[in-house]
């Protein structure tokens, strides 16, 4: 018997207006930690959102653990981009993390104690236990990112999809995220993360998907994350900063 991959996508195409953002992507996410890498506007976030049904797909099929999303929603976690919400919203860090437990609660009434405790435990896991009652607008950017991470953890999912978890965070937060990722894998969970920093791909992830609207390469970092594949994915759009990152990655690889 073969075990179904945590996430499998076949012939997925998504377009905004006339412009295709994700083009005929067929891909099986491996177990463990996987990075989705590609240039700006390559459809990385769109791919994640499309698998979760947050943006409509023109065609294609998505399976989580071999089943459609509706049947396994409770096994999937999600960490959206930090900028996708208004952090001025009147809520505390604990309020936000509790939102992860709503599918397990009745639709009315206050948050039951045990879910509150689970949310607090998730906050502690990212080093934010002292900020539970803090207004989210009064947290630093890195702390806000850790609140989102705690929320994804509180979902207690087998597969967590993360959209740029490392974007614009401080060193402490980056370290907290890395620790959490490794903990998840140690517990047999899986993570698929959109990642923008080529230099840290080999350090943080075991597998990689290189995408620029369509799939350019995928597989274990050692095999797929090669200069030739990176060059092909980034193509002529290789920006100066990305070049620097590639060089750093090359230096590490050699």
């Amino acid at each position: 018997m073969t075990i179904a991959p945590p996430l499998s996508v076949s012939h997925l195409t998504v377009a905004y207006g006339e412009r295709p953002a994700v083009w005929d992507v067929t891909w099986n996410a491996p177990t463990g930690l996987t990075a989705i890498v590609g240039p700006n506007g390559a459809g990385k976030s769109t791919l994640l959102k499309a698998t979760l049904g947050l943006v409509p797909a023109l065609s294609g099929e998505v399976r989580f653990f071999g089943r459609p999303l509706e049947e396994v929603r409770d096994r999937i976690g999600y960490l959206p981009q930090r900028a996708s919400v208004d952090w001025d919203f009147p809520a505390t860090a604990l309020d936000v993390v509790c939102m992860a437990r709503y599918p397990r609660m009745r639709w009315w009434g206050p948050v039951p104690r045990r879910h509150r405790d689970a949310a607090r435990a998730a906050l502690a896991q990212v080093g934010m236990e002292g900020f539970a009652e803090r207004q989210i607008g009064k947290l630093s950017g890195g702390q806000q990112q850790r609140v989102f991470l705690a929320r994804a953890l509180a979902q207690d999912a087998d597969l967590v999809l993360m959209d740029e978890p490392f974007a614009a965070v401080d060193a402490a937060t980056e370290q907290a995220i890395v620790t959490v990722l490794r903990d998840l894998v140690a517990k047999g969970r899986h993570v698929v993360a959109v990642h923008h920093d080529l230099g840290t791909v080999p350090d943080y992830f075991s597998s990689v998907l290189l995408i620029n609207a369509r799939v350019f390469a995928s597989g274990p970092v050692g095999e797929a994350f090669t200069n030739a594949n990176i060059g092909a994915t980034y193509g002529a759009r290789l920006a100066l900063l990305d070049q620097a990152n590639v060089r750093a990655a090359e230096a590490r690889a050699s």
Partner: protein
Amino acid sequence: MIAYNTAVVLLGCALLGLAAGTVGTFSLLRGRALVADAVGHAALPGVAIAALIVATLGGDPRSLPPLLAGAATAGVLGVLAVQALARTGRIREDAAIAIVLSSFYALGVAILSWLQTQPGAAQAGLSKFILGQAAAMRAEDAVVAASVAGVCLLVCLVMFQRLRAVCFDPDFCRMQGLGVQKVDLLLLGLLVLVCVAGLQAVGLILVVALLVLPAATARLLTFRLPRMLAISAVIGAVCGAAGAWVSALRPEVPTGAAVVLALAAVFTVALLLAPERGLLAQVYTHLRRRLAADTEHFLRAAWEAQEIAGAGPGTAGDRWAPIGAVAAARGWRIGRARRLAFWLAQRGLVARADGNVHLTPRGAAAARRAVRAHRAVEHHLLAAGATDIASADRLADLVEHGLPPEMAARLLPEPSALPASPHQLGERRP
């Protein structure tokens, strides 16, 4: 003793304000404030057509239930039209709302004008729906207002968690399969309910204010959602009653206008005086920050003036420095430097004599910290290749304030020593 009729009107308007305050809180947070405007304006043709139908069928066109049913139907149609227009992707939602709102309203005005040319009483009293006339409220209407308030309060309290989650992060809720669309529909339903119930009292043009102003005011006053909900409800209720009261005393003032003016007054006061988010608080914070920055800049310039005069980095702080040199180093007018010197002398950081300043021990310690922070940032920027020598000074001026000493120590190659300036000290062109 308040007359029975006045009491009914006061109670009705207060309950209406309460309902609008609670529902308005969530619709504001969901970014749907303008939808209330669309519902209100779109209701007019519904009222007019309902009156026409009732009159044609031989009923009393002034009886309220059919008119309100017409208003609700047209209001919902208006919102659906907005959503359909926005979904085409050709028009943004704000434009879609403006289009629907004005078109429906124009249609309502046209039908009303035509009704007025017709024999019979179909048009009688319909214009009161435009500006509102709470004085016409009867006990039954107050009961309607009470029911609406009860429903809104109950739903907002019972569904509090869901409503908050959908307002904060709808995509996350959708991903979890939480029925975002159902929650949105529920919120829209409550919005239409409040709008329609408020038509008679405040009128369809101003009903949006009832939904937006209490919530917006409460938003300025607190960072906690439960408190925001309570404050918004109370403001809505109090202003609703106050407006009705004024309108009862001076019948020439329409209730809607009185209620909205009361709400606007409360909002304005909150906008000016709210702690943290109020304008005055923000101006105060800004001025305090600027003074703190000026203080650090002044002390550093006084310190560096002594370094220029030949004191080594370790001994600067013991001599007198001319205020003129401080002003020149900062590119300040002499008056600004003198005022700062006066202020710093009040705080015991410098002593003044004959246009010179001398750092007190406390002032010297603060100056040393400021110099260290500044040079640490400069050093860091230069080491990272983020800037050249010419700009490092100015860039550091922007970010050095509030830099904790231990962070400065981390940025410097020799944590305990005070480094020399990486650039030449002296005058600065403003």
